[in-house]
């Protein structure tokens, strides 16, 4: 019978994506066996993230500073915003090293069946950015890099429609992304090709 402390750890670990109760126990045990090289450093890393990492108020990225490092970077092309579902999609695009514009992380896709509507996503923020760009006279291009899932397509159509009044160009990544494929599963070459061959929709 494990102690209350360990039970608690296992319970939390079991809530992590990809970990069931069995694998949570295995992870807990592995941590406990290496208190100095794994358990303590992990605890410190968790504390540090909990204390410092926040969601960027502009784009929805995760960083220790708000606005995030991407939004602050003066080298970035401010005329392009790439819209992604989750932060790991942003990471995938950054890994590819070919994209030099800004981002907007929606936090998911529209899904009536899951009760996720425009208010549940970071859509108002994106429209505000488009409006600001229009007011400042910046020619903005919005690149939709949403998964080729059913929900991703609906969300793309929705954003294209809502962005039209701000006069920005809207494009989406070229087809060739496998059906049901989410951005972060793609390799760098595929992402680069999809970015280069993006198609204008509005």
């Amino acid at each position, binding site marked *: 019978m494990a102690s209350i402390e360990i039970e608690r750890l296992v319970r939390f670990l079991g809530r992590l994506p990809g970990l069931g109760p069995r694998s949570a126990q295995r992870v807990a045990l592995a941590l406990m066996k290496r208190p100095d090289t794994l358990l303590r450093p992990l605890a410190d890393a968790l504390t540090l993230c909990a204390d410092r990492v926040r969601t960027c108020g502009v784009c929805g990225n995760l960083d220790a500073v708000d606005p995030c490092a991407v939004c602050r970077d003066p080298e970035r092309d401010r005329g392009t915003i790439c819209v992604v579902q989750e932060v790991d999609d942003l990471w995938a695009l950054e890994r590819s090293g070919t994209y030099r514009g800004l981002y907007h992380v929606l936090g998911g896709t*529209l899904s*009536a*069946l899951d009760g996720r*509507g425009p208010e549940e996503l970071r859509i108002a923020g994106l429209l505000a950015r488009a409006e600001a760009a229009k007011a400042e006279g910046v020619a903005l291009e919005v690149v939709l890099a949403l998964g080729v899932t*059913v929900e991703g*397509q609906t969300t793309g*159509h*929705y954003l294209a429609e809502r962005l039209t009044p701000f006069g920005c160009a809207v494009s989406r990544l070229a087809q060739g992304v496998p*059906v*049901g494929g989410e951005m972060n599963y793609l390799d760098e070459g595929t992402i680069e090709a999809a970015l280069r061959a993006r198609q204008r929709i509005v």
Partner: protein
Amino acid sequence: MAAPAPSAAVPIVAVPPPTAVTGLALKDFRNYGRAHIEAGPGLVVLYGPNGSGKTNLLEALSLLAPGRGLRRAALAEIDRDGGAPWRLEAVVDANGERVEVETGRDPDAERRFVRLFGEPARGQGALARTLGVVWLVPSMDRLFQEGAAARRRFLDRLALAVFPDHATTAGAYEKGLRERAVLLRTGRRDPAWLGALERRMAENAVAVAAARRELVNGLNRLLLDGFGALPRVVLTLEGEVEAMLDAMSALDAEGAIRDRWRWLRDADAVTGGSGLGVHRSDLVVADAVSGELAARCSTGRQKAMLLAVTLAEARLRQARLGDLPILLLDEVAAHLDGERRERLCATLVDLGAQAWLTGTDPELFAALHGRARFLAVEEGRLHEHD
């Protein structure tokens, strides 16, 4: 005058053997605890008393295609009583290549997993491209008496074997219809959201309708020639979206459908469905010579008509994708008289596809002796017979 040189330049094209399931292992599947069959490319006759598990074997084979198989069973229903989640492992010779397919019930999710060479299959299209499976089962005897939904399913399954992405598109459409119903019912009438959804659904609807039209046209061309003693059949697609494609481009049809859906929102909110869409189409089957509708023909004649459609389907897949599908013919011989049975057997041999036939009595397939593999099925066990 010099003799013509031997035509050494003519390449000898190796025609790959037809697609065939060469090995199938069943685990905790219906009445099979563990069973394993090996088969060649030709015809396989499964015989045994009713309830012995012949149709269960065909069901296992039908699950090598996307979808819910020939019984349309719930996943857990397939588990053997007291057994683990069911599981199938098949070796398929497809276009001269050996493909390993695994499928079964995923106990953690209410879905089935599909693996090709041990890797999760990406979407339903990957499986449908690897092999086509078409079937004719006794429950389809009611196809022409039932509502249009059963015929649409039949049609879409035929389409799937010819257009591997059809299941994905049709699934996306159905999901869109459910999403739209939720938005309309809960009063979340965000016009931009509904508009975006209807736009995507219109794209799916046109893709589904276009695939169905092309399928029916292709089948009709093949059915014109007839198949042996089987009746000549003509198929007609009845559907508003399908008809739109006769009159306008796909893009215009998408626009027209979106306009109509916008107007139908209030009415559709009440019904929970929609007054327009590919979920309302129907397939009409008739005798090409007499014009008599299948619905008015005898059961035996209907069966023969469906057999003709099934064989045309096999040829269509071959013409479009280069490989023949696997045919599953459950209890098809019992309805036919001796001569018709023999001619059917000859037609199947001619077709060259791997076909799995069932019957209670091996004598029904006497014409196939020496040309098919005969397997006796007995309470979840299989015996070779020659």
